[in-house]
């Protein structure tokens, strides 16, 4: 595939997904095109294939997507509920950092009226693990753990270890709410007894879209590309090999690094289409 053909294809993906209407579209489009121009023909095809299944949820879509996730519950599950406590999905060591989960509190507070199924329910917000430990959950109360995106489930499991220390919190009284979640992680959570309210379920970018032998070939090809992405080793195919294809307000490291880390060719660096502001 020639560069000009790849540029035409990426523009069609942008149009199909209405990405040209997004705020940072210029940077993303230029990033994609420069990258496609510098890749080898078969690498271009792989990048386009992945981009075709990519989700780009910008900040201004959070409200609608999160409200949609909250509403994805049957009303009978809420009939007896009087109070819901919200807690962000964070690791204990990240407690004092600003995280996306806490930002979602703002949306929940501001747009509770849009969550029509919860009209009769009082919302409370827990911000620290100390508050979580002190919580005595009554039978007509629930705990909702919230985040914008759940990737490999690593952060969730750390958070859950803390939740488990409070004996009044049983899995049946806990729900997980997020805008997007990886399919296999969701399956694990459900098997552990946690109901998940979400808007988007993501498949693994290569593994779940290809036959096994083809998937292996494509992963090898992706690892070849990653040889030209400095610092990509710990996040090869995305952190924990999540193979995620998503950009939220920020791109999670579960996403293939080609989308968010600088690519290097012949000593020249190319900005990633969805560069993270802290990536150099």
């Amino acid at each position, binding site marked *: *595939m*020639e*560069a*000009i*053909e790849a*540029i*035409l*294809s*990426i*523009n069609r993906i*942008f149009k199909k997904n209405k990405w*040209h209407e997004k705020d940072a579209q*210029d940077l993303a*489009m*230029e990033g*994609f*095109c*420069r990258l496609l*121009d510098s890749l080898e023909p078969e690498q271009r*095809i792989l990048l386009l294939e992945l981009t075709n299944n990519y989700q780009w949820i910008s900040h201004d879509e959070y409200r609608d997507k999160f409200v949609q996730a909250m509403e994805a519950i049957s009303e009978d599950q809420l009939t007896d509920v009087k109070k819901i406590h919200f807690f962000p999905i964070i690791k204990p060591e990240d407690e004092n950092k600003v995280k996306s989960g806490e930002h979602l509190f703002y949306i929940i507070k501001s747009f509770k009226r849009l969550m029509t199924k919860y009209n009769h329910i009082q919302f409370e917000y827990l911000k620290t693990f100390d508050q979580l430990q002190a919580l005595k959950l009554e039978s007509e109360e629930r705990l909702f753990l919230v985040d914008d995106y759940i990737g490999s489930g690593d952060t969730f499991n750390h958070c859950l270890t803390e939740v488990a220390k409070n004996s009044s919190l049983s899995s049946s009284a806990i729900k997980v709410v997020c805008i997007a979640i990886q399919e296999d992680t969701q399956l694990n959570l459900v098997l552990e007894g946690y109901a998940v309210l979400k808007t988007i379920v993501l498949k693994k970018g290569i593994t779940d879209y290809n036959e096994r032998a083809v998937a292996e070939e494509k992963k090898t090809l992706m690892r070849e590309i990653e040889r030209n992405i400095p610092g990509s080793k710990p996040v090869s195919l995305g952190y924990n090999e999540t193979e995620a294809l998503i950009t939220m307000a920020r791109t999670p490291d579960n996403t293939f690094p080609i989308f968010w880390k600088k690519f290097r060719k012949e000593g020249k660096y190319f900005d990633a289409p969805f560069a993270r502001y802290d990536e150099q």
Partner: protein
Amino acid sequence: MNELNLTLLLNIIKNKGNVLRLKREKLSFRQIAEFTEQAVTDGFITYSDNKIILTELGEEFLELHLPATKKKNKAEWIEPDIKNKIKPYPKNEVFLPNRSEFSF
């Protein structure tokens, strides 16, 4: 559609040229993509199975307009590299550069 840009585009497609040549015409990648879409609509090229091919109309257009893109006087687009220009030394002169001027 600008004739020069269309000629450059068709030439890039036909001869697997560098697409960055169009960036030199101050086009953004999005404009290049839209411009290519327009060329499909206008029947100069076709795009299917990830392949762009010149149509007969495209071939004719390229043949007609390509010479004009190459007519340019070299002096108009190649700037002399004046800072690296040195005076020729006479045949028998021995040249001993100043050590402090070495760049290595």
